[in-house]
């Protein structure tokens, strides 16, 4: 009997296959395929909220490529659980928003399910090889979804997305091989800190991550790590990676660089972000929702799961640079969003700005900041999905996305205007809405961190002006004032399907904004543990 986390990958795959069956049931299969990971993720998240802890739960392990030490090993901590829940939610909402897709709907939904399975694979796996495989598999359905179902310049945008992200992640493959290659065939014995055993050993210190613990008379503790790809085992060897040399630098530096490049392209961080506006503008609404709601988070997730735990000394050394990149993204993204006239592009740049807070929060290495970065990833998933849905709503009616081509839509579409206002205010970081929590935590974390981070936080604080300006200016130009075009008076307000897609997000944005404690409590232990792990690398 396979466990819940495996189902969260298998169910979308199976539903994807069922989608291809003839008939009109594809969308129902797709919806079900998204609801399974949502249920699993929510259950796991609830467990972490009730019983906070930094350990991996729902762990299952099946042999797969035992000869190289790779296996289907899955498990989630608070971070993984939150990401899994988000991915299920966003996929379900994207499916609802594409409910009436007419262009080859069976293949469309099947590809979305394949994409979802690959993303969930990244979120639940504890095996680096599987992580990499899922990471690359994601590109294929995305390439097809943008390249076939996209707008006029879909082929350019799809190719750009593909080349950009592939080029970003190619070094990760090299890193993966090197890490394996530099581990002796018989495994490596490494010293372990007492706190790591405290945090992760379930049997009072007899084993750690399934490896027997050896204790010596001088009080030191060690485990013998086999050659393989288990992330928890690789993490134990981080000191070894610092010592190994490759290409004139330490293996740790190379590996850090490799993950960083792959992650920063996905986030996306300035100046590696220009694939995003093209992809968003060309992608159909539902694919934009998936892209902004989940795909960007994978970059942040890779930093939290790979770069920081595997190479803590490098994270400590280069943290300031990630903070600077984050702040540049926050300010430049907001600034450029202010100058956009294409609504989708505007939301895309607001994503660049908001995702910068994830980098800033993580880089400062405070519990508040690191947790805030992850909260921001979740809340941005809710907020930007909603914004893209709302752009899609008026695109369906007006067949253009020019922000100056609207005006006064609040009169014919009052419900739409209210939801747009809530989404914009969440994007502008209004307290009481979800967008505020992550931003405030990332800022407060930076303020209380050492080194250059208070300065970076102070610069990032200026973005509250810009985000209010571009978000509310957009609301004004779209919804308020007298009706700019008389033909818009005939526009209908949100219909049942559109409400079904947007209202759950609105409710979540308000609930998380007013009472963020469960989410934060679920995320905090894992983030605190990460910060402590990286800080333990201090010389």
């Amino acid at each position, binding site marked *: 009997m396979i466990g819940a986390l495996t189902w969260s990958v298998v169910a979308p795959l199976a539903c994807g296959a069922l989608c291809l069956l003839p008939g009109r049931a594809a969308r129902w299969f797709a919806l079900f395929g998204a609801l399974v990971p949502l249920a699993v993720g929510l259950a796991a998240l609830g467990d972490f909220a009730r019983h906070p802890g930094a350990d991996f739960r729902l762990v299952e392990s099946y042999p797969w490529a035992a000869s190289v030490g790779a296996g289907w090993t899955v498990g989630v901590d608070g971070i993984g659980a939150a990401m899994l829940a988000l991915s299920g939610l966003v996929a379900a909402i994207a499916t609802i928003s594409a409910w009436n897709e007419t262009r080859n709907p069976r293949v469309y939904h099947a590809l979305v399910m394949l994409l979802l399975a690959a993303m969930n694979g990244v979120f639940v796996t504890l095996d680096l090889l599987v992580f990499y495989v899922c990471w690359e598999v994601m590109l294929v359905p995305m390439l097809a979804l943008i390249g076939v179902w996209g707008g006029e310049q879909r082929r350019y945008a799809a190719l750009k997305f593909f*080349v950009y992200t592939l080029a970003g992640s190619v070094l990760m493959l090299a890193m993966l091989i090197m890490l394996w290659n530099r581990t002796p065939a018989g495994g490596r014995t490494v010293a372990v800190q007492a706190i790591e055993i405290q945090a992760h050993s379930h049997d009072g210190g007899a084993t750690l991550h399934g490896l027997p613990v050896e204790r010596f008379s001088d009080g030191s503790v060690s485990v013998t790590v086999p050659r393989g790809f288990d992330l928890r085992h690789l993490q134990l060897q981080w000191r070894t990676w610092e010592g190994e040399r490759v290409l004139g630098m330490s293996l740790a530096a190379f590996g850090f660089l490799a993950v960083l490049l792959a992650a920063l392209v996905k986030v996306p961080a300035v100046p590696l972000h220009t694939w995003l506006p093209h992809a968003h503008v060309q992608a159909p609404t539902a694919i934009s929702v998936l892209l902004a709601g989940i795909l960007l988070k994978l970059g942040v997730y890779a930093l939290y799961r790979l770069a920081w735990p595997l190479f803590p000394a490098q994270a400590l050394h280069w943290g300031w640079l990630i903070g600077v990149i984050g702040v540049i993204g926050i300010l430049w993204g907001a600034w450029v969003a202010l100058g956009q006239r294409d609504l989708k592009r505007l939301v895309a740049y607001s994503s660049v700005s908001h995702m910068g807070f994830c980098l800033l929060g993580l880089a400062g290495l405070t519990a508040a900041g690191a947790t805030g970065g992850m909260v921001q990833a979740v809340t941005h998933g809710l907020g930007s999905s909603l914004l893209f849905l709302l752009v899609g709503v008026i695109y369906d009616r007006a067949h253009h996305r*020019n922000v100056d081509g609207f005006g006064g839509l609040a009169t014919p579409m009052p419900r739409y205007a209210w939801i747009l206002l809530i989404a914009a205010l969440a994007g502008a970081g209004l307290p009481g809405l979800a967008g505020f929590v992550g931003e405030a935590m990332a800022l407060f974390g930076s303020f209380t961190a050492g080194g250059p981070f208070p300065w970076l936080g102070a610069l990032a*604080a200026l973005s509250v002006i810009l985000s209010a300006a571009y978000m509310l200016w957009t609301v004004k130009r779209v919804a308020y004032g007298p009706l700019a075009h008389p033909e818009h008076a005939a526009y209908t307000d949100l219909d049942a399907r559109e409400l079904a897609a947007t209202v759950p997000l609105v409710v979540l944005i308000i609930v998380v904004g007013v009472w963020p404690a469960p989410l934060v409590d679920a995320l905090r232990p894992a983030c605190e543990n990460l910060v402590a792990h990286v800080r333990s690398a201090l010389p």
Partner: protein
Amino acid sequence: MIPAWLSSAILLAPLAAAVLTLLVPRSRPALAHGLAAGVMAGCTALAVWLATLIVPGGVAYQGPHLPWLDLGGLVLGVGTFVDPMGAIMAVIVGLLATLVLIYNAWYMHDDELAGRFPWQFSLFVFAMLTVVLADNLFMSFVGWELVGLGSYLLIGFWFAKPAVKDDAFYQQMKGAGARGILEDRLSPAHAQLKAFVMNRVGDAGFLIGIGALLAAGVASGVREPLTWSNLALIAQGGALPGTFLGLSGSELLTLACLGIFCGAVGKSAQFPLHTWLPDAMQGPTTASSIIHAATMVAAGVFLVARCYPLFTPDALAVVGWIGGITCLLAASIACVQWDLKAVLAYSTVSQLGLMFVALGAGAAAGGQAAGIGHLFTHALFKCLLFLCAGSVIHACAGHQDLHRMGGLMRRMPITAACAGVAVLAIIGAPFFSGFWSKDAVLAAALLHGQTAGGAAWGPFLLACAGSLLTAGYMLRWWIRIFAGHERDHAVCHHAHDPAWYASAVLIVLAPFTVMFVWSPWLGHALGAPHSEAHAHAHHSAMLVASGLLLVGGGFAVLAFWWKDAIAAAAARALRPLHNACGELWGIDRLWDVLFTRGLGAGLARVSAVLDLGTRDRLASLEGAAPSKLSDALSLDGLIDGIGRTCRQIGLSSAAWHDGRLGAYIGLAAVIGAAILLLGVLL
């Protein structure tokens, strides 16, 4: 004994009103108004009860406190804290909210959007009470931002209204060459956006101030550093522990205070962020009456007073000077306004400046009590003034131009009398509340000038000049509307007092403008210091204020009631000054050119092209063909260039592998020569 639920109930009642009225069908505005007013009245009653328990003893009360978020070693909480200042403020907020809701039921009786007003208004009041009753700075910030939301909703209440191009204010400004830069300048949709963004400019500073206090809190190892009691502990001795942005000690504390004050400059419409408030009168007059009185602008003054123990002398000097400059600047602009709400709007800005002058004088000079005292008296008479203005606008079928009014005293006696007492209060006439509170402000500033000397006299002198002008322009306002002859019969002939319940609201508010109702008691409740020096300063200030009142008020009566020619002659004689005031001293224009058009619309657009080039731009919008050059030089273009170069290298190197013997030999020769050359050179 104070019941534990009391303060929380006061805080949550307006939120309950907002939720309840949100559920009332939009077609039943009277029901929604009644419901909201009823809940607000209950809230006011509870606030009065709480005040009677707290004010006489003069001790602060800490209500229930809950953690809201644990950030890992750093806790943010929610809870209530009430001291005499907060208790009285809560009473005033509740009282004015109740009265304004009742009044609004009449004011919007034929407005189809009226059903929206009660819930937005109640949300606004909830936000303000959050600021007033918060027991920590973080919760204040949350309330602060929600106040911004409430004002955004109310200013943009008539969201579909087009820009008022034939508005007197607009025409005058356009004639003077200052306004009309953006055609939709005076639409509610623009005003709400402007108010929110201008406030956010101040909030960015507020956040940095919070950052300084958080860093100090972490340095001193306090788990929840932002509660008022812990802040006082951390900032003991006028210095903060730790470093932040390269500052430490008392400099760091000054930074924190200036950050908080920066937020107050935005919210309380102080120079140079004051320009949003006059535009905000695009909202319903009833909304203005609460924004200008008990909520929104009051929040800034209240927060500075709440954080008063933190403020260093350096920070207070900045507070005093900004207040003084704003006081005179706004008063000078108010003198030449012809829109009846614009005069009141600038008078609010000016009076808020006066409050900051008092706060800048320091606690020893009685600044805190004076500033807060003036906030309270001002809240009541300014609310009354705006409600009277609403009656006049309603009576004159929406006209707001002072040129076309006059002689309304006979047609609407209740409004004229109530506006009259409110004007007497704002100009500080003896026996009115403004006389007492303005005297306290000037006395504090005077005493501060005497003790500190030198530049410390500046705020006092600016406040005196502002008070002189206030006497002039407020009397001019009343005389222009209510006294003399009817200038435009078409506008005025339907005028009458509002319905009985709206008139009753005016009549209920009017006694609060009289000094003996509450003023001496207020000074005692707020803990104004008593000494020989204070008494002496009060006498001097009273003399100065009376002199200013006689000169300013006398001129207004002469020039606007007795002989219009005097006003015209004065305007001619002071033409450059008159024009500068008419052009709002160029500040609005500067903001427009620099930020709205320059940075906002211009440079951001350029940045967008720098980032992505001009490709696939919207054909319907741009018209012009995409520019190849900017495409190639944009960030995206450069990255595409890398891709293109790789492709070119691939294509051209493919040519070397196509099996032509001559090419291979040529390539080998070139490489060999290069190696030889390198060998010789090295």
